[in-house]
């Protein structure tokens, strides 16, 4: 079983629309939405949830004010400023280390499970899907990404699927690293803007750091031909193949409004280019 992750560095370059298109082109795949912070793939794939699993991220301190003797040891020892001088917990800042519980002389603090969100196993019109919802303001999205990938792997093994297609998060930090570690191929969706090029260089630094094979697709390549050439040159210099050039097309938004993938919605040039890119990826992955 193989795995591909679609990422971008910069947000909003078209990761999810490309992933959704791949979902409708694949024949034997499991889909995984690993952008757990702002998951959107389900808006197109309309999954029917079969199983819901509670997710507990880091633990959280719980302070019993009745027992507390106001010695302030927890306040002075917390490195995250998660307890204020009046010994109130600042929930958003607690990283669950357990130092406050340890230093409390009267056992007034307990580390407890925190309900951080849910992961789901679902069925879509293109096959099974693993996805999740992280509660807003929660930490540990990297841990939830790992959880979604574990679920996807389990389904792939059970149902004899040969590929997992992962929709990744933006950025280069913890959730991204969790979404790409150990995959066979990373597809980076970029666009010909200076911001996206800057972010592409940083995300390629990450895939190189972790030694993960990467390929690039330039979305809306026709909005600035000079910058498109810059990306091509950069990729050539760094021995990275550009596997797709996708034209700017309003059908992307139109398809989204209709809750359809671009492939389902239109038979135009964009769909042809997506299919062409998909075939190249299959070849690269020996599928």
């Amino acid at each position, binding site marked *: 079983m193989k795995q591909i992750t679609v990422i971008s560095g910069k*947000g909003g370059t078209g990761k999810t629309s490309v992933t959704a298109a791949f979902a409708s082109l694949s024949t034997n795949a499991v889909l995984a939405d690993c952008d757990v912070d*702002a998951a959107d793939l389900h808006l197109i794939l309309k999954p029917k949830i079969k199983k819901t699993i509670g997710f507990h991220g880091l633990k959280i301190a719980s302070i019993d004010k009745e027992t507390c003797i106001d010695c302030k040891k927890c306040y002075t020892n917390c490195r995250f400023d998660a307890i204020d001088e009046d010994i109130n917990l600042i929930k958003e800042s607690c990283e669950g280390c357990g130092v406050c519980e340890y230093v409390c002389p009267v056992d007034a603090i307990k580390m407890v499970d925190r309900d951080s969100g849910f992961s789901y196993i679902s069925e879509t019109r293109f096959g099974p899907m693993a996805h999740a919802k992280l509660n807003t303001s929660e930490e540990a999205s*990297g841990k939830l990404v790992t959880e979604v990938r574990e679920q996807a792997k389990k389904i792939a093994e059970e149902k004899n699927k040969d590929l997992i297609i992962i929709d990744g998060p933006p950025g280069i930090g913890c959730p991204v690293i969790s979404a790409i570690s150990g995959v066979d191929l990373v597809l980076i969706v970029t666009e010909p803007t200076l911001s996206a090029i800057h972010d592409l260089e940083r995300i390629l630094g990450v895939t190189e750091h*972790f030694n993960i094979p990467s390929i690039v697709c330039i979305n809306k390549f026709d909005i600035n031909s000079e910058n498109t050439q810059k990306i091509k040159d950069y990729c050539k210099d760094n021995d990275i193949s550009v596997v797709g050039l996708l034209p700017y097309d309003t059908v992307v938004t139109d398809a989204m409004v209709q809750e359809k993938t671009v492939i389902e919605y239109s038979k135009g040039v964009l769909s042809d280019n997506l299919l062409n890119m998909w075939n190249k990826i299959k070849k690269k992955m020996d599928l």
Partner: protein
Amino acid sequence: MIISVASGKGGTGKTTIATNLALSLKQTQFIDCDVEEPNANIFFKAKIDERKDVTVEIPIIDDEKCDYCGKCSQFCTYNALAVVPSKVLVFPELCHSCRGCGLVCPKSAISWGKRSVGTIEHGVVDGVDFYHGLLHVGEIQTIPVIKALKKKIDKTKNVILDAPPGTSCPVIETVGISDYCILVTEPTPFGLHDLKLAVEVVKQLKIPFGVIINRDGVGDKKVEHFCQSEKITILLKIPHSTEIAHLYSKGIAFACELKEWDDEFKNLFHKIQEEIKK
């Protein structure tokens, strides 16, 4: 006044709004808190005149004192320490610098060293006092870099914070200290879905907020309907325009080229001042 610009969904135009607002106002402080992918300086082009390393603490084990009792690794909730028969292994990239291992060590064998996780940089351009942070490639500790940036906030000025996308810890860290939050969205199903998540966050944080609809004219009208039914102020609509998109692609803040927009951003600031008074 501290104004944060956030979005939920990436690529809706946070940096576009934030940089144009700062350049229209002048005499502002601008802090790019998207330390994973900072883009604001593509538009400001500020010459960097100061650079500072951001470090976090990591444990250093004194092999002379350590008797391999294993208490440190049992305590560490992040699995950053492992004790094998005659050695303690430290995994610095997993360490959250809580100092718990040092507290539980019965032999006082743990001291503290420093590890670099990113840099913050400063520059001045067109009256804008500019900072951004850069998380090292391959690194996961975004929060210490954002915290280092927040220490630079100059409350005597109007401060604009450009937030990272999403709804989790780095966003809370940025938006949490602002007096007002601008949520930038686009009129598409993805934009609406992620706007709702972002609204949940700012409501939890009890920060007054308003919405800017970018690329108005594409997609559908559901974002507008949502804002109307939730009584959320729509501060500004920026139409879908190839001219604006092209200027963006070249790294140009569009209000610098299109004069009428310079006034729009000045008005935006006054509107926000009025909103806060409410």
